[in-house]
């Protein structure tokens, strides 16, 4: 129960921080997500061989990020992403995931 409450508080905290950050800088989410574009394509529209992130629900991206973080996704499921995500806060990741979720998906993308 206590864990749950802490988790909820973290969640609310992250979302409040997210809203505040976006209010201060309308391009913050885009600028953070742009670091991902190098491999995952501009606005998450990937070329073949990398995951397209455009149009994926925020919750789905955050779940996968969480699995990279926890080590649940590793080995063949996560080569460098488990190392890379540790450079970002949950609030930053929530902004990035939100940005990709709002991009138009490419038809037929994986």
């Amino acid at each position, binding site marked *: 129960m206590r864990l749950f409450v802490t988790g909820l508080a973290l969640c609310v905290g992250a979302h409040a921080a997210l809203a505040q950050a976006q209010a201060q800088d309308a391009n913050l989410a*885009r*600028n953070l997500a742009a670091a991902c*574009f190098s491999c995952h*394509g501009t*606005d998450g529209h990937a*070329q073949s061989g990398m995951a397209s992130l455009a149009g994926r629900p925020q919750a789905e991206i955050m779940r996968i990020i969480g699995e990279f973080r926890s080590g649940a996704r590793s080995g063949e499921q996560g080569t*460098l992403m488990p*190392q890379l995500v540790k450079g970002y806060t949950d609030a930053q990741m929530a902004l990035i995931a939100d940005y990709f979720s709002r991009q138009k998906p*490419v038809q037929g993308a994986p």
Partner: protein
Amino acid sequence: MQTRRDFLKAGSAAGALAAASYAAPARAQSVGRVVVVGGGYGGATAARYLRLWSEGRIEVTLVEREPAFVSCPLSALVVGGSKRIEDITVGYEGLARLGVKVIRGEATEVDAEKKTVVLQSGQKLPYDRLVLSPGIDFIPGEVAGLDDPKAFDTVPHAWHAGPQTVLLRRQLEAMKDGGVYVITIPLAPYRCSPAPYERVCQVAWYFQKRKPKSKIIVLDANEEIQAEKALFQAVWNGPYKGMIEYRPSNDVKEVDVATRTTVTDLGDKQQADVLNVIPPQRAGAIAGKAGVISVNQRWCQVDWLTLESVVRPGIHVLGDSAFPASVMPKSGHMANQHAKTAAAAIIELMSGRAPNPAPMMSNTCYSFVDDKRVIHVTSTHAYDAAEKTMKAVPGSGGTSATASELEGRYGFAWARNIWADMLG
């Protein structure tokens, strides 16, 4: 010139659809002019994102001396022979379609007072802000015998991808079995720290298949392998065991081009059948002309919020020419990240707003140890407001556990994606 071939074609369907949404915006109100010098990983990315993110409100001119982009990443595969130069060449048409004015030429002067770039042709390009992404040039006088550029027709550096890469490949093909390939590595920092060791793997892969009696000698001015040491050692002592002689702290100061002989600072001589000298490097020459080289007469110190020179306001410096923050590599991927931070900041500044106060950058380098297997190194860098620099985030980043074909496939996918991200 559309020369992405074969393994790049696979991504073209999704690419074409994505490209459709990035057509040139119709006649937007201009907020100013930016000239970008250098169409590599930094400059091409900056040109593209200035157009995309300003929605066409910034007029962008890109000055590039070559007719098409040739990638340094993956060029080791051309040296090894599993890829051709066409496979790592991409044209600038995608940028032109976005409204970037692409000029083939050489920028020779910058008048920072008048805010004008002068080209070798005499053409003058006025700018409101200037982006310099000229990569590296070799420091004259550091290696005796190499000051005449013609020396590199015999002793290739192949540290600019293109004809030099092809020349090195041809020399390796022409070499007799039982010959000696010597590669020299300068003191760090130099462009792309794992790249010389990746090249050694590629030459070893080729020799193993075609010229098994041949030998590789690595003359490294540094005390040890500069990146992914344990991983490279595992490959050199594994599949390539007995083929590579690594000599640390061997700083080559002189080359006799006619006999392909190197001389170190201690006077040790080594003759080669194919000699590949990578000379010490500094920011590209135009950075010197623009007066933005500010560290050790080699590199350009920048404000990491904007990539703007700390000595010449209005001039932004990207990529290998920038004096790197602590543990920040000089890589194509890093230049692409510099460029996006700079493009975002330039648009904010030209629109009368403040740039993002907390930029983040990541790096990924894939090194091919043969034609299929890859090792990676990755890092994440966050802006530190107190020290006004980028710092690697503690606990983040790392390397592969071992070389794998899975990461080889990611390596090729990385190339397809970043080339599309920078060139459209």
